């Protein structure tokens, strides 16, 4: 049939028609828009409304940002430059930049020290965060806290060296004793470290910091975003191990340990963080004589760490509870003791389950570090609310400063959250 038919018609195509691109409405951005933005009448209306809303937001803010003034010495000068037009006064950020980052009392010649400590933080954190990196890098991670302390506070190098020596001795004692008994190793290590610190503390001469290589900077002079970072990093890294210990302690079959952990967790969780901070800054100074108080930074670190470790303990307890009972029994049936079972079987699984919760606490904790501004520490928010807004030049600049603070915090918190999502994907061993 087809042959005859072919003779009747005037034209028969002998070759394939070259593939032509799909019609404009079925490809490219137009197709995407038809499918995603204008799929149905209701959809189209929503799209138009959203575009209008975006326009409403951006039409005043974009000119405000783009028209911003970056160099001026005061708000009134900004306004003179703007001359009635809408525009931000970002000059406050450029003029007070070091104050926003380092506080107003950190010596200007020493700004490189916290900056260097900040850069080294990434190198130190890398092997912990990304476990594909060579394990040898962990040595630097172990040294980092002492190095960072020396860089930021300065003073005699003997103090961080002594702290390091105490930790090393404690670690050695732990290794020696842990083979026979975990508790003996654990407490033996702590006692050994304390002995080293006490003995060494006597040996460090009074006034050793006076002519140190790096001039000493007292804690009171720390401030700005540096203080938020320091509090956040220290407290998160301390509260994670303490939180794990508390979570395990709460599940312990030994009543004393169990009840200590339960009371600690429930008490701390029942008290607002700001109350703990007030206790740290106000009440404790009543108990100590004026000359010998514990460093305010240390007091705040202890309080925030206690607070967040109680929360992390509960998050991890959730992870432990989510593990099937069979996992515990399997560990027992292999003949593993408690420490081994926890380290090799239970905790790796429980911690994996707890990652979103832990990250949640960490992000919350990082933002909570701004609460220290109410106990007159000059973190980023404290710097903005106190000295900068109270200066005659910059009183009245709110959006630019607080927007900047929000942006800084967003960068860090979003980074943490992205890392945790990567970690969850990396650790996913189940087949979903």
């Amino acid at each position, binding site marked *: 049939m087809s042959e005859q038919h072919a003779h009747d018609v005037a034209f028969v195509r002998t070759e394939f028609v070259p593939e032509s691109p799909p019609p404009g409405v079925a490809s490219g951005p137009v197709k995407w828009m038809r499918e995603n933005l204008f799929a149905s009448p209701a959809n189209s209306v929503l799209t138009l409304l959203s575009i209008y809303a975006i326009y409403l937001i951006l039409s005043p803010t974009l000119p405000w940002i783009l028209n911003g003034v970056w160099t001026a010495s005061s*708000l*009134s000068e900004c*306004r003179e430059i703007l001359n009635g037009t809408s525009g931000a006064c970002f000059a406050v950020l450029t*003029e*007070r930049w070091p*104050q926003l980052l380092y506080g*107003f*009392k950190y010596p200007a010649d020493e700004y490189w020290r916290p900056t260097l400590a900040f850069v080294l933080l990434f190198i130190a954190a890398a092997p912990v965060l990304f476990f594909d990196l060579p394990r040898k890098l962990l040595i630097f991670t172990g040294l980092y806290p002492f190095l960072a302390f020396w860089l930021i506070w300065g003073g005699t190098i003997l103090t961080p060296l002594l702290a390091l020596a105490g930790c090393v001795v404690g670690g050695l004692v732990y290794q020696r004793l842990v083979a026979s008994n975990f508790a003996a190793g654990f407490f033996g290590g702590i006692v050994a470290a304390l002995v080293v*610190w*006490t003995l060494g*503390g*006597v040996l*460090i001469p*009074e006034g050793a910091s006076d002519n140190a290589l790096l001039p000493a900077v007292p804690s*009171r002079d720390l401030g700005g975003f540096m203080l938020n970072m320091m509090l956040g990093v220290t407290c998160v890294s301390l509260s994670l191990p303490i939180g794990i210990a508390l979570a395990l302690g709460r599940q312990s079959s030994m009543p004393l340990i169990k009840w200590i952990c339960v009371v600690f967790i429930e008490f701390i969780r029942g008290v607002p963080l700001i109350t703990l901070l*007030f206790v740290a*800054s*106000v*009440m404790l*100074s*009543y*108990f*100590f*004589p*004026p*000359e*010998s*108080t*514990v460093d305010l930074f240390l007091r705040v670190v202890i309080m925030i760490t206690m607070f967040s470790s109680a929360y992390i303990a509960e998050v991890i307890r959730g992870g432990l509870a989510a593990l099937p009972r069979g996992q515990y029994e399997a560990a027992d049936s292999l003949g593993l003791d408690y420490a081994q079972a926890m380290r090799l079987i239970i905790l790796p699984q429980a911690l994996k389950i707890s990652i979103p919760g832990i990250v949640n606490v960490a992000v919350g904790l990082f933002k909570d570090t701004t609460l220290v*501004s*109410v*106990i*007159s520490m*000059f973190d980023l928010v*404290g710097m903005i*609310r*106190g*000295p*900068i*807004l*109270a*200066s*005659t*030049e910059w*009183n*009245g600049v*709110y959006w630019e400063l607080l927007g900047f603070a929000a942006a800084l915090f967003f960068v860090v918190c979003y980074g943490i959250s992205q890392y945790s999502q990567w970690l969850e994907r990396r650790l996913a061993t189940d087949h979903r």
Partner: protein
Amino acid sequence: MKKSVLWGALTVAGLAAGAAAAGTIDDVKARGKLNCGVTTGLVGFAAPDSNGEWKGFDVALCRAVAAAVLGDGNAVEFVPTTGKTRFTALASGEVDVLARNTTWTFSRDVDLKFEFVGVNYYDGQGFMVPKALGVSSAKELDGATVCIQTGTTTELNLADFFRANNISYEPVPIETNAEAQQQYLAGACDVYTTDASGLAATRATFENPGDHVLLPEIISKEPLGPLVRHGDNEWADVVRWTLNALISAEEYGVTSANIDEMAAGTNNPEINRILGTEGTLGEMLGLDAQWAMRAIKVGGNYGEVFAQNIGESTPIGLARGLNAQWTDGGLLYSPPFR
């Protein structure tokens, strides 16, 4: 080393604190620094500038005391305190003197066991309204919406004032001064009320300060002054008479410019006694003869300090008002140096 001190200290804390309180002046001299409690930042009164140097009206008093006692106006450790931490900082001995625009009230003086050594600024609650409202007295504010900080004495004063004048108002509660500024400018309230110095400072930050007026009524008494702990009268005397020296210096025309000239000796015996060329006033205080001279030199007399930090030539632009010398119709009245 610190640790052992710490544990031992726990047991003898009360004792040691008592001992420390007994001789603040010796403590300050031994330390070589004056610990002075200031605000974490209040326009014109205390704030660090872009170099981290503390400046302001209250700061100047700290520097004057440090100059009198230690001979150096920069030998001050400024301890920033918030409204909530200020009293414990003083009571616990963390600061030697609190110069933090604190209102002198009965309960603070008596119940909290502090000693106000004088008044360095007479403040009071005032009202600010937009000029366009056409109001010239607070008594014309019937039915107005008023922005007010909650939980402060200003709230109570406001209620009293309106009730006493038998007029009505609608409060718009706000939390902080910053919020109040925004609300007021956005027109959420017709009137903003807080301390008059705060109103002036707030108005100075507006784009068009001329469009807003401060009403003449001042409806409360807020005498702000430096305070020290109860029970150390020698130290209280030092701070009190340093403040009085600044005030008297203005009264007798001693300025930072002419003080060297006057220190050579003048015809006025009172000036001579203040500047230490006559009498032994410094010795009575436990200081040397030049104490007041140094205190005045560091930032000038009271009038100079006022003009530099909050006076009419500054953006804050406060008039002297109640804070003028008694000879000019104000309340500043220093007891004689004799």
